[in-house]
C-alpha cells in the first residue's frame, strides 16, 4: 500500500469530477430535490378525503351525523348526492373516495334505540387510503354514539347509566403522525446509495469501455490503491450530500433529531464506504457501463428503496423476501437512522447494526481487491 500512488489516483478522480461541473451539480442537486419532495410534497398522511353524502332521511338526526363528518379534518364533504349513480360516477372518475349513505328510517331507528344502519362506500382501489379512512370513519361514529348516549342519559335525569368505554389513544415517538418524520431520515440512506454505488459503478467500467483500463493496470498501482483512489472523490461528494440532507431535514423541514449528530455522521460514513466499495466491485466486474448501471440498480438502489423499511415495512413482506432484506446493508442503516432521529437511541442500542455495517464494508473491500488482482494477473 503506497499512499503517494493512491493520492495521485485520487487527485485524478477529483479532477474528473471537478472538470465535469454538470455531474457535480446534479450530484449536489439530487439530495435537495429529494428532500424537497419528501419534506414538502409527499405525504402518506390521509386527510381531506373527498366525501359525498346521500341523505335519504333528511331529519335533524341525520344532519347531526353529517355535521360530525363535516367537522372532521379527515373528511372533506364535497356535497350531496341524490342517488347511487352519482356516487358511482364520482368514484369511477376519482373525484370521490367515500360516500356516506343514510337510509330513510335512520332518525326513527336512532331514537327508538334500534341501532340504525348507515352505509359507507369506499373506493378501495387505493387500499391504503381506504383502510385509514375506514378507521377514521369508525372513530367518528363512535364519538357520535357516545355523544348521543350521554344526551339520552341526561334526558333520563342521570338516574340511569349505560356502559361505555373510554378509549384513549396515544401515539409515541411521532405524535403528530407525520410521515415526513420517518421518511426524511431514511432519505439519507437513499442519497448515499445513489452517490456511493450508482455513480461509482460506472467509473471502472468506463475505463474498460474507453480502453484506458489497460493503462491503469499497467501502472504500478496495486488493487487496494485503485479501489481507495477511485472512491475517495466520491466519498467526499457523499459526505457533502449527507450533511446537506441532514441540515435541510432538520433546519427547513423540522424533522425531530433526538440522538447524537456525531454518531449519526459516523454511521453514515461507514455505510457510505460500504456502498462505495460495492459500486467499485460492480464496476470491476463489468465492461459496459449500461450493464454496470443495470447491476447497480438491481443490487443497490432498488433494495435500498424497497427492501430496507424506508417506506414499506419489512415485517409485512413474505418471509423469503424478509430474509433477503438481511443481505443488503441499507436495512441496518435505516434501522439505525430511524432510531437516532425518532427514538434518540445511542451507540448501545445500535451496536449490532453498526458492527454489521463495518463487517460489510470490510468484506466487500476484500472482494474488490481479490477481483482486481485477478484482472492484473
Amino acid at each position: 500500500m503506497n499512499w503517494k500512488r493512491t493520492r495521485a489516483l485520487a487527485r485524478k478522480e477529483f479532477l474528473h469530477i471537478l472538470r465535469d461541473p454538470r455531474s457535480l451539480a446534479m450530484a449536489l442537486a439530487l439530495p435537495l430535490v429529494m428532500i424537497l419532495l419528501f419534506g414538502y410534497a409527499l405525504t402518506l398522511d390521509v386527510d381531506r378525503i373527498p366525501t359525498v353524502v346521500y341523505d335519504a332521511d333528511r331529519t335533524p338526526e341525520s344532519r347531526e351525523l353529517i355535521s360530525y363528518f363535516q367537522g372532521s379534518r379527515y373528511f372533506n364533504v364535497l356535497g350531496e348526492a341524490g342517488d347511487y349513480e352519482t356516487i358511482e360516477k364520482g368514484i369511477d372518475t376519482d373525484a370521490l373516495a367515500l360516500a356516506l349513505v343514510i337510509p330513510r328510517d335512520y332518525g326513527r331507528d336512532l331514537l327508538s334505540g334500534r341501532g340504525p344502519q348507515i352505509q359507507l362506500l369506499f373506493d378501495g382501489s387505493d387500499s391504503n387510503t381506504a383502510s385509514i379512512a375506514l378507521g377514521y370513519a369508525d372513530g367518528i361514529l363512535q364519538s357520535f354514539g357516545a355523544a348521543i348516549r350521554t344526551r339520552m342519559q341526561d334526558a333520563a335525569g342521570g338516574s340511569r347509566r349505560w356502559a361505555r368505554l373510554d378509549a384513549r389513544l396515544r401515539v409515541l415517538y411521532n405524535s403528530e403522525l407525520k410521515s415526513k418524520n420517518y421518511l426524511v431520515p431514511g432519505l439519507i440512506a437513499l442519497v448515499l446509495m445513489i452517490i456511493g454505488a450508482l455513480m461509482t459503478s460506472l467509473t471502472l467500467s468506463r475505463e474498460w469501455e474507453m480502453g484506458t483500463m489497460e493503462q491503469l493496470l499497467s501502472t504500478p498501482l496495486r488493487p487496494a490503491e485503485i479501489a481507495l483512489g477511485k472512491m475517495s472523490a466520491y466519498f467526499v461528494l457523499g459526505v457533502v450530500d449527507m450533511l446537506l440532507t441532514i441540515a435541510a431535514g432538520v433546519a427547513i423541514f423540522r424533522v425531530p433529531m433526538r440522538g447524537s449528530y456525531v454518531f449519526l455522521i459516523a454511521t453514515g460514513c461507514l455505510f457510505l464506504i460500504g456502498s462505495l466499495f460495492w459500486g467499485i466491485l460492480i464496476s470491476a466486474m463489468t465492461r459496459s457501463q449500461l450493464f454496470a448501471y443495470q447491476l447497480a440498480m438491481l443490487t443497490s438502489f432498488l433494495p435500498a428503496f424497497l427492501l430496507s423499511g424506508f417506506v414499506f415495512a419489512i415485517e409485512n413482506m413474505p418471509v423469503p423476501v424478509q430474509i433477503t432484506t438481511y443481505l443488503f446493508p441499507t436495512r441496518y442503516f435505516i434501522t439505525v437512522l430511524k432510531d437516532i432521529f425518532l427514538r434518540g437511541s445511542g451507540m448501545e442500542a445500535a451496536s449490532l447494526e453498526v458492527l454489521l455495517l463495518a463487517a460489510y464494508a470490510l468484506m466487500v473491500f476484500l472482494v474488490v481487491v481479490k477481483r482486481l488482482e485477478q484482472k492484473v494477473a
Partner: protein
Amino acid sequence: MWGRIWEIVRKEFYQTFRDPRSRALLFGPPLLQLIIFGYAVNMDVDHARTAWLDMDRTPQSRELLAAFELSRYFRITAIARNDREIQDLMDRGSIHVAVRVLPGFARDIANGEAAPVQILVDGTNSNTAAIISGYATRAVAVYESAIASDPQTAPIVSSPAEGGGPAPAVIRAPRAQSRVWFNPDLKSRDYFVPGVIVNIIALVTIMLTAMSIVREKEIGTMEQLMVTPIRPLELILGKLLPFAIAGVLEMVLVVAAAILIFETPLRGSIPALLGGTMLFLFSTLGVGLFLSTISATQQQAMMSSFLFFLPAILLSGFAFPIRNMPVPVQYLTYLNPLRYFMQIVRNLFLKGVGITALSQEMIALALFGAAVLGLSAVRFRRKLD
C-alpha cells in the same frame, strides 16, 4: 429513406440481441424488478404485535383481551407487568401497540362510568400507526357494543324520557355497513402492482434510450454514423424504433408476469392498455432522447435520468396520493406523463373502466409525447450539425 432507417434498426437489434447476456439485460431486470417490487411494496397491516398490560384483572378486562385476540389485526406477543416493561418493548421496537387496562375498569362498567382503556401506538411509521389506531378503536367499539346490549350491564327498567314516552332500553350508535369497491379485501398488492408496471416501463425505456445514444457519443461511433449518408431524422427514427418495440414487448411481459405471479386482476380491455402504453412510450423515448442531447458521458446520462425519474415517479401518485400534496404541487403533476399513465394502468386493472373514462389521460399523453419527442428531435438535429 426507409431503407436507411431499416439498416439502423437492424444494427441496433444486432447490437442488443447479439449475445445472450445483452438479451438477458433487456428482459431480466424488468422481471426481477417486478418480483422484488411486487412482494416488497405492501402497506397492509396484519397481526400488529401487541403488548397487554392488565391492571384490573377482572372478567371484564379479560373479555376485552379476547376481543383483541379475535381481531386478526392484533397478535398479543407480550403480557406486560408494569409500565417500564411496555416502555422497554416500545423502545426496542418489538411491539407496535400496547393496551393498558386501568384499575377500576370493571367497576366503572358496572357503574356506567366511562371505563378507561389506554392504547399506545408506536408512531415511527406513521402510516402503520394510523391504520393500527383505526383497528384498535374498532376492537374497543366491538366490545363496547357487546356490553351495552348485555342484560347484566344494560339498564332494563326504563324511566320516562323527554316527551313522556318510554326511553329505549338500549341506545345503539349507528352501525356502519362499510362496503369497499374494487378491492374488497383491501389488499395493497392489487393497488401497487399496476403502479410497479408503470415504474418499470418508464425507468427502463428512459434510461436505455438516454444511455445507449450517449454511448455512441462517448466511444466515438457517433462520428462514424454521421459520415454515412443517413440523415438526422432517419438516425433518430432508427435509434428509437427498437426501443419502442422493446418497450411494448416489455410491457406485455411484465403485465403477463403480474397476472401470473401476483394474480392481479386485469378488469379492463387489453387493447386499451396497449394503446396507452404506445402513447406513453412517445413520452419516455422523447425524454430519453432529450437527456441524451444534454449529456456527454453515460454517467451524466444516468444522473440526469435519475433526476427526472425520481421526482416523476414520486409525483405520479404511485405510493403517495396526489390529493394529499400541496395544491401548487398538484398542479405541477399535470405536467408529469407518469401521472397519466399511472391513472390509465390502475383504472384499467382495478376498476375496469372503459376507454371513454380515460380519454382525457390518453389525450394528455399524446400531446405530451408529441411535444417532447418533437422538441428533442429538433435539439438532437441541431447538436448533430
